[in-house]
């Protein structure tokens, strides 16, 4: 510190309070408060449903928040649909493992066009409403700092996460010493069958616009003129 005298100052308590809003999985940072599903529905319909749909199902502004979870998932803590390759989408509730994440994110970022405008109790309430839509809490539930740890025990995908990989660039979470996938530096007669297995269909060639206009007009090559083909 002495080396950089005059640079930086201690933060005041009020300043830390104003900005230190994160809520961790152990609920460090969670302010006291509460909100019922019923009040949450009100908040939701007023401030959230226009984008996310009345039941959190809308795909028009963002991916659906709710859906794809079951009572079995709540029991096991694993969302079964995530295993199904035929299952179309992945909702927020299918993926989220920690309830703190929902609380923290709604509190900091929602509504999208007016983030940080909700009161603490509104955040509790609307979180409760989303949890109720997924049957994590009953319709007469009131979520609070006192019971949120129990609710965590019912999160449908709470056991669905793993850090058993080598892609955390630190020691704390690394679950594997070596990368899971490894290529081979074969140089000749490599055992591959270079058949084209996937190609854009002709009708999709212009889905990204005319590629001739997306390449420099001078150089070793041009962009292909795709204006003759239909957009997808």
């Amino acid at each position: 510190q002495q080396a950089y005298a005059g640079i930086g100052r201690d933060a005041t308590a009020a300043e830390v309070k104003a900005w230190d809003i994160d809520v961790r999985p152990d609920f460090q940072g969670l302010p006291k408060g509460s909100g019922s599903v019923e009040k949450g529905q009100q908040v939701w319909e007023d401030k959230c449903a226009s984008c996310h749909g009345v039941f959190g199902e809308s795909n028009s502004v963002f991916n659906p928040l709710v859906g794809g979870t079951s009572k079995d998932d709540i029991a096991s803590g694993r969302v079964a649909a995530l295993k199904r390759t035929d299952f179309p989408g992945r909702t927020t509730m299918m993926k989220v493992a920690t309830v703190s994440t929902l609380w923290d994110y709604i509190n900091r970022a929602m509504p999208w066009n007016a983030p940080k405008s909700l009161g603490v109790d509104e955040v509790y309430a609307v979180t409760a409403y989303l949890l109720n839509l997924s049957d994590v809490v009953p319709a007469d539930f009131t979520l609070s700092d006192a019971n949120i740890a129990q609710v965590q025990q019912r999160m449908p995908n709470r056991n669905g996460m793993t850090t058993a990989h080598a892609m955390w660039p630190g020691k704390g979470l690394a679950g594997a010493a070596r990368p899971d996938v490894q290529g081979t530096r074969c140089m000749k007669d490599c055992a591959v069958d270079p058949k084209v297995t996937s190609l854009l269909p002709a009708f999709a060639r212009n889905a990204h616009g005319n590629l001739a206009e997306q390449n420099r007009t001078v150089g070793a090559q041009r962009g292909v003129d795709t204006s003759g083909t239909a957009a997808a």
Partner: protein
Amino acid sequence: AAGAAAAPAPADGDPNILQLPEHSRGLGQPVATDGYGKPSKYEANVQRRTSPGLTQTRQASVSFAPLQSLFGIVTPSGLHFERHHQGWWDIDPSKHRLMVNGQVKAAKVFTMDEIMRLPSVSRFHFIECGANTGMEWGNVAVPTCQYTHGMLSCSEFTGVPLRTLLEMAGVDFRKSRFVLGEGADGSSMTRTVPMDLVESGEVLVAYGQNGEMLRPENGYPLRLVAPGVQGVSWVKYLRRIEVGDQPWNTKDETVHYVDLMPDGTHRQYTSLQECKSVVTTPSGGQVLLDKGFYSITGLAWSGRGKVKAVDVSVDGGRSWRPARLQEPVMSKCLARFSADWVWDGKPAIIQSRATDETGYVQPSYRQLRAVRGTRSIYHNNAIQSWLVEESGEVKNVQVG
């Protein structure tokens, strides 16, 4: 071969030579016509672009850098890819503050004036979105390398090692192994970063990009630079660093930027960008004007350090030869490679394969999918294939 090859010169010569152009016979424009200059009007096609249908809004979205038109390793800041979660802002730097709090002796506040007074470093690093090439996990989805690989850029970043600030606040490295970065925008993006990277001095609190201040789209006036780590961790509009003893599990750590495995589990905290490469010339959506000589060039990078080698194949992976690597090859930075090729006019499948200094070799789609399936969304670092057809047209393909 197809294309708009220049007409052969008439017997006496090319009119562009014989008739002196206007610019050889006149007086041009004055200095400082633009106090801040811009590209030639003939470069108007070189733009960052969105991929239709990828996102439902343009403020929680992506624009892709036109890799097919770039040279060397530096990405012009005007073409740097964008990824916003709640739109971008042009923040008044005189009002911007950085707070350091959590497990420190004393929480601190810094002004931009103060941060810019501290000893800084300038380093070249790539930044890649964890979702880069994400649309291609299952099958070919987009036509050009702008869309397949364009969530990738590389700049010279200038800033203060985060370690310096944590030491000023009084950190205990034995106790605190995690750091939270938090932005000042609407999303107030939060991501956990390992203290190991901070301790090494690699993680920067950066204000400079390619010699000037960060661009507003890239986090002006302050962003976290986490070399080798996916872009979402390079928190923009950085307002706060919290020091702690466990990760935060933020929305973009447990709902997004998690990799769905075939068994239905999600891999979490897969932050590192593994070794990868792509041929940018020639590449999908282009057309070769003629048979003959071409210089195949592209980019290679690794979140684990330096690129050691890149190999190139023109027969879909049956045979490979080493490409040239342009010096200097820097750690966690793009490397430009090139290889000579004479195109005989027959169909060819062009690929590149990078190896990094840890010995990790970029996998084929087959190798990658064998472990991770096709639904990960993130961290697709498979070998890219471009099919050159007899017409000269180059198409994005996957080979089996």
